[in-house]
């Protein structure tokens, strides 16, 4: 089934079709709506597992399960999809998180409820996310990249935080959800408008090199637009990389383009925050690995120091900002800035070890931060507040939720043996020995600062645990009885916990797919991965 190219299309479009079918289900029949969406998400997830089972890991550096059909012939855009070792883990992560999000929402509806609309939006989101990870055509990628905007805009705006806030710099007051929704939308569109200009410039450049213009990503990678006769001038290539950088960096988000993130993540409903953190952020870093680096490898070397510097600023800034937060959910949101900083630092090294680190970092961040947002949502659902000063003694009040929170916080601070460790550790390792030709001093400084960042991460995570979890319950809560995690919550969380542990002990689960693809990417782009890095990856990845 996957060999024919239909399987991937099914993974991408089944959620959308499911959402359209759900439109026909009456709004009052909530049970049917929930079961239907669950079924759709489950089948999609199982299909993605089937894809893993059929995947040829011996050839993980090639695109498999491809479909390549004409779509808009007049502009040379094709419906070209496929997965390789880089996109496969992310695709599975995406289908899994969507499934768990639907399980979690079963009994957790935020005002104004309306499960029908909410579930349909999740399913549309799923199509956008899955599509982005399999698209091998720039226009197709752009479309899927943008398709996620509308559902997320509505999710934040309708179900988001209704607390009134003051807009920074203005005297106006507005509900948080309204501010966050439009800010998210505007920031992302700003980036992607420039990204589109960059894509178009690549398209025309390919015409000069190949004689025929194309949006096809593998063809563009093979074309060597920078070195081939008639290719791009250095200035043009610099501008194109910069345009794509804007699009991806807003999405990641990289400092200083990150300011939409704390607002959007905090204001979004629980499931929205989970999907944002677990998947949507990865669309940006994935874009760097899939498109920007391999198509313009020389410019990647020019931009790498800047990316590394911004990544490190993100790590330090995100951690320090966390220490200043009083709102638990906002703290978790800022921690994403730091974690994605490690992902970007790994990318900036342009080595196989760094890129491997960034991919496993993405997967781990998706699992861990997704779980943290689930927990924050469940806790604020019970306490009706997220102010850490008012919480405390959670472990006594709700042992299960408190225990899982402690576990997840440990994973988030990068405890060895859990999934979060590999991304941070290997990103730092990569920064010690970046691609030859890159400024060694700069990257080693970045490594040191990044290492300090891990300490800060530990600091704020422990600070949160101490505030929220430990100690005696404050007077406000003592005497209250809280119902601990219910079965829907556990059903959504246990798979994440298991994966965090499994990947922590057995990173090969991810490296087994990625290493081959990453080594080949680095080899094609910059000729010859460094020996030591390859050796380390081989040891870890088997």
């Amino acid at each position, binding site marked *: 089934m996957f060999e024919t190219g239909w399987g991937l299309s099914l993974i991408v479009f089944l959620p959308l079709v499911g959402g359209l079918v759900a439109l026909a289900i009456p709004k009052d029949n909530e049970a049917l709506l929930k079961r239907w969406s669950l079924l759709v998400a489950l089948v999609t997830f199982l299909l993605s597992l089937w894809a893993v089972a059929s995947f040829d890991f011996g050839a993980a550096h090639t695109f498999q399960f491809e479909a390549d059909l*004409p*779509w*808009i*012939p*007049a*502009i040379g855009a094709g419906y070209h999809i496929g997965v390789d070792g880089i996109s496969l883990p992310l695709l599975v992560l995406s289908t899994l998180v969507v499934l768990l999000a639907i399980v979690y929402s079963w009994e957790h509806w935020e005002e104004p409820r309306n499960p029908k609309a909410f579930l349909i939006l999740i399913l549309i989101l799923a199509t956008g996310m899955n599509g982005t990870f399999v698209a091998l055509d720039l*226009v197709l990628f*752009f*479309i899927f990249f*943008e*398709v996620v*905007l*509308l559902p997320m*805009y*509505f999710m934040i*705006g*309708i179900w988001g935080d209704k607390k009134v806030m003051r807009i920074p710099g203005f005297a106006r007051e507005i509900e948080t*959800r*309204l501010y966050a*929704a*439009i800010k998210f*939308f*505007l920031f992302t*569109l*700003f980036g992607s*408008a*420039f990204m*589109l*200009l960059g894509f*178009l*410039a690549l*398209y*025309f450049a390919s015409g000069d090199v190949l004689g025929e213009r194309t949006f096809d990503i593998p063809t563009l990678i093979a074309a060597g637009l920078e070195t081939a006769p008639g290719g791009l001038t250095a200035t043009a290539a610099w501008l194109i990389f910069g345009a794509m950088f804007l699009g991806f960096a807003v999405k990641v988000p990289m400092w200083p383009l990150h300011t939409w993130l704390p607002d959007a993540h905090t204001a979004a409903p629980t499931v929205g925050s989970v999907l944002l953190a677990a998947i949507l952020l990865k669309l940006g870093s994935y874009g760097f690995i899939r498109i920007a680096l391999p198509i313009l490898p020389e410019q990647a070397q020019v931009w790498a120091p800047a990316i590394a510097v911004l990544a490190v600023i993100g790590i330090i800034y995100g951690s320090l900002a966390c220490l200043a937060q009083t709102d638990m959910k906002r703290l978790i949101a800022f921690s994403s800035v730091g974690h994605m900083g490690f992902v970007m630092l790994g990318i900036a090294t342009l080595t196989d070890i760094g890129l491997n680190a960034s991919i496993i970092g993405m997967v781990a961040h998706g699992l861990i931060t997704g779980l943290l947002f689930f927990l924050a949502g469940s806790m604020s659902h019970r306490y009706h507040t997220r102010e850490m000063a008012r919480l405390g003694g959670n472990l006594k009040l709700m042992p299960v939720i408190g225990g899982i929170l402690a576990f997840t916080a440990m994973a988030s601070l990068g405890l060895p043996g859990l999934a979060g460790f590999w991304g941070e550790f290997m990103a730092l390792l990569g920064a010690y020995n970046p691609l030859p030709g890159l400024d060694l001093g700069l990257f080693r400084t970045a490594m040191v600062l990044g290492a300090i960042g891990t300490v800060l991460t530990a600091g704020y995570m422990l600070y949160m645990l101490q505030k929220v979890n430990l100690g005696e319950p404050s007077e406000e809560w003592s005497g209250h009885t809280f119902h601990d995690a219910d079965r829907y919550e556990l059903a959504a969380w246990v798979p994440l916990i298991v994966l965090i542990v499994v990947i922590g002990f057995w990173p090969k689960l991810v490296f087994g797919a990625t290493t081959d693809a990453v080594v080949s990417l680095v080899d094609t782009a910059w000729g010859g991965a460094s020996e030591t890095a390859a050796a380390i990856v081989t040891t870890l990845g088997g």
Partner: protein
Amino acid sequence: MQIDWLAIAPEIVVAVTILGVLAADLVLPRPLKYWTATLAVVGLTLAVVPLILMAASSVETRSLFEGSYVVDDFALVLKGLFLIAGYLVVLMSVSYIESDRYYQGEYYLLLLSSVLGSLVIASARDLIVLFIGVELTTGPLFMLAGWRKGDIRSNEASLKFFILGVLSTAILLWGMAMLYGVSGEVRFDQIRSALADPSPAAQPLVGLAILFVLVGFAFKVSAVPFHFWAPDTYEGAPTPVTAYLSVSSKAAGFVALFVTVYVALRDRVDIWGPGLWALAALSMTIGNLAALRQSNIVRLLAYSSIAQAGFMLVPFAAASVAGEQLAEGLAATVVYLVIYALMNLGAFAVVIQGARRTGTGDIDGWAGLGRIDPRLGVLAAVFFFSLAGIPPLAGWFAKFVMFRAAIAAGSAAATSLAVIAAINAVIALYYYARVAKVVWFDEAPAGAEPATEPPAASLALTLGIAAVATVVVGVFPAVFAVFGEATRVLLASG
């Protein structure tokens, strides 16, 4: 003289329909006046038939009256657009005009006359024919804008439109007269060859003529800085007329402008190219910034249509300043024009129905409309986000071809126009998203009941056609790119 009757069959059908409506209006008793609308719809539908026959025939270019009137693929595409847009506007008008209970016959008579004018524009390759087409398009609209006689805003709309319309006509005519003066010809191809090598003494006059023509048309398409009449006229005119103004009459103005500069003045692109560049940049930026501040939905759409006019000009203007890929630029502009027409008509249909549901044209008055009437709420989101260019709605493809043509032109001026357009696309999102925000995020006023009565059938049909087109074109733009191809082939020969 041999006349190719098929080539002018659409115009003849519409003209006969006009007479039919006039006659019917005389004989029908008042309660049956709505039959004039039916007649108009039937006439516009029939007029499409010869277009299809011509599109299917192997004759590529039909040239009539010694080349003054040409029907090629370019003209066919645009005539199709004008007929469909006219058709949708008539549908939108039915329930709106019926509720006023007067002069229904005259309304459709005037509307059809305007459609006839735009059909003429698409084929005009001669200064005189073009001028007649332009006047036939705008003349009836002066009266239609003032349709609500009892409403002082409607009167103001009509008067402003009339005075500035006449002024622009005068400027346009002056420019045309100068063109005739320096070239001694009225046919575009002959003007072009005459201007290819003018005497040095005539040079300043050529520049002045082009400037006047450009300004004249800029008024018609309400490009900044010649846009001041548009918001007031749009707000005061009956909403279906506003929809027509912002789509068909604007498109007709664009087509007239393009035909003139592209066919007659192509060799003087050095003069009008920078002019178009400035019009595009200013229209986008000023239109968008002004739209941010609007509280009335129709005024918002008025400024949005000014900004959209700027976007539309981008491909052609970028190609012009770069001095190459003109045909590609024009094709992209035409694609943008057609997509814009579909989604903007949809947006106006939403405005009509939304105003009926809420009883107000104030954006804030639409709070919670999505809860009161979910279908209308979804349609509002579809059309307004499509105008913003968000995939997978049709507007993204319009923006895409716009950026594509601008980048293809390649010069620094063209690329900078693309960057200005990119920034403006983000600004525009803010006010389009604001409509969705009010409709979906804000609380409905206390006591608002879910709507039960369906919209008038004709309006529902308009909404349905526009929505289906917007989504289908957005997902499979290939169905559409055919038009762009047609334009390219056509103009390459012209």
